[in-house]
């Protein structure tokens, strides 16, 4: 076990601040572990060895000069999902289309992290353009789950989860459109936080579905995630959907107290499809919260079962527009052999996009097409309203909602399920949170018979992050983080 890289991020930052460790020393250890373990997990698309060394020197100078005294994570290495733009470092979206794309600007979240002295060490794997739940649609091949390399790490932010679990990064950023942070966090036994829509700037995030996308952190503890959230959240004039509220400070919510907290459990989330080990684990979680003084109540939320249907219509419609910009001219892949501009567009797009991306573009265009708009797109927006209203009614009664994060633990890497009903059933637990723009956090709560991690999801009302942080923190005091037993 590497004593440095297995440390929580906040503890590491305080050791750097107290001069027990230097930033370069930490980075050297981190890069060593990355290179040792990368052949096993395939989580990094780009490792920024030299760039990170430059940042480390600069951050050490700023720490020594006392400029970063207020920064909770100065000197800590972070990995970034490869759909978030990094200046002069390629940003591929795990697609052949952007294999050689090098942005000339940093996303707002990257700027904020760098200003706070966090060291960006690399870009990590995802499903192509964040479309999938396993990293299996990545042009660079799938990543592996550090708990068992025969299993997927989840997705789409699979690399972001895998690297933090495998101690190839202390913390990471992912993006969540329909569970893409929470599901991989649960598969890899981590904390994964999807903030309220509008909390974190999307400027520089390559869009999948702009009305649903939100960037958020992965960490081994809720405290580490909260520290990242403190840095990256806030209004940004460059993102018209970011919301200008006064208090984006969350660390004060790390309190071990859930007495009298009202927790609602939607019955629908405990349906017959739930894996037995997960149900048992979830029952234990409910008992833990009750023993801590929270009031847990089961109740009905019947409209959520239409979440995946509405989600697929809306997200594919938006994706179809978002991906129209890839034309083989301004950036990205261009075909070698073409006859005229239309042929250039068609061949470049057809040769560079993977199957899942093409399917979603087709579906998205279909649901907005003549004669279909009312039946699909507009219908989905109305369903979205009903789901939003159903959540608001729930939050009139409860402080937070609690559910399992996923119906199963991480599937085997060769497992393929093409029946939409089965495929999207599990997503019911996640996508409705995005449709309603709510914050959600996945936290680890145990393991199944195969030894794979199980996660639970805490959902809060809009801009009510602090309540779910408090509940997660209290829970973590009873069930602290466990590193994968397979790690050396």
């Amino acid at each position, binding site marked *: 076990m590497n004593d440095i890289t297995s440390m929580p991020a906040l503890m590491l930052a305080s050791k750097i601040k107290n001069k027990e460790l230097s930033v370069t020393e930490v980075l050297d250890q981190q890069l060593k572990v990355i290179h040792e373990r990368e052949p096993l997990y395939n989580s990094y698309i780009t490792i920024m060895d030299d760039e990170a060394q430059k940042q480390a020197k600069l951050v050490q100078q700023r720490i020594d000069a006392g400029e970063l005294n207020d920064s909770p994570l100065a000197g800590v290495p972070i990995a970034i999902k490869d759909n978030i733009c990094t200046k002069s470092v390629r940003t591929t979206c795990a697609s052949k289309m952007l294999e050689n794309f090098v942005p000339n600007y940093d996303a707002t979240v990257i700027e904020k992290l760098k200003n706070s002295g966090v060291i960006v060490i690399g870009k990590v794997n995802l499903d192509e353009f964040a479309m999938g739940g396993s990293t299996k649609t990545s042009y660079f091949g799938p990543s592996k789950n550090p708990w068992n390399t025969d299993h997927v790490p989840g997705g789409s932010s699979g690399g972001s989860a895998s690297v933090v679990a495998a101690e190839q990064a202390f913390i990471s950023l992912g993006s969540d459109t329909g569970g893409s942070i929470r599901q991989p966090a649960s598969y890899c036994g981590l904390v994964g936080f999807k903030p309220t829509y509008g909390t974190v700037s999307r400027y520089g995030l390559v869009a999948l579905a702009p009305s649903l996308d939100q960037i958020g952190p992965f960490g081994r503890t809720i405290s580490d995630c909260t520290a990242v959230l403190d840095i990256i959240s806030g209004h940004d004039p460059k993102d018209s959907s970011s919301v200008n509220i006064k208090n984006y400070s969350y660390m004060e919510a790390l309190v071990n107290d859930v007495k009298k907290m009202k927790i609602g459990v939607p019955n629908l989330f405990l349906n017959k499809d739930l894996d037995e080990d997960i149900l048992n684990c979830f029952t234990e979680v409910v008992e833990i919260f009750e023993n801590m003084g929270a009031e847990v109540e089961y109740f009905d939320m019947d409209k959520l079962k239409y979440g995946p249907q509405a989600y697929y219509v809306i997200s594919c419609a938006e994706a179809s527009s978002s991906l129209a910009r890839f034309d083989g001219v301004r950036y990205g892949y261009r075909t070698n052999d073409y006859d005229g501009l239309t042929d250039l567009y068609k*061949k470049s797009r057809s040769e560079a996009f993977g199957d899942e991306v093409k399917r979603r573009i087709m579906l998205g265009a279909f649901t907005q097409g003549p004669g279909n708009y009312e039946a699909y797109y507009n219908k*989905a927006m109305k369903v979205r309203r009903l789901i939003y209203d159903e959540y608001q009614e729930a939050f009139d009664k409860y402080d937070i909602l609690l559910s399992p994060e996923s119906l199963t633990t991480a599937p085997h890497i060769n497992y393929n399920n093409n029946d939409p009903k089965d495929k999207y059933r599990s997503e019911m637990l996640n996508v409705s949170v995005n449709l309603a723009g709510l914050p959600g956090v996945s936290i680890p709560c145990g393991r199944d018979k195969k030894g794979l991690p199980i996660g639970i999801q805490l959902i809060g009302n809009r801009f009510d992050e602090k309540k779910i942080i408090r509940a997660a923190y209290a829970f973590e005091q009873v069930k602290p983080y466990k590193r994968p037993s397979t790690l050396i």
Partner: protein
Amino acid sequence: MKFTKENFTYIADIVKLDFTKDEEEKVRKELNRMLHFIDSMNELDTDNIEPLTHINSLKNVFREDEEVEYRLSGQVTKNGIENKDDYYVVSKTNMFGG
């Protein structure tokens, strides 16, 4: 509603994607299974429900005009496969599908 051979070709043309005959057959089948699943949302009565277009209320936000310096010359076009003098290079085009 379903993907037919005709509307599949029509939509593929709009979104600028080419499919081989075999691909088309496979993708069309998959998409129709998905549409069948999506159609189940029709069980939910949405009469008189206002569509939800934006989660956060959208209103105009005004601010003073500020000059911001952007030094992007030569940077933006460099990600294009072919560029010259800060322009993208494409083949000769004409409005009749050339």
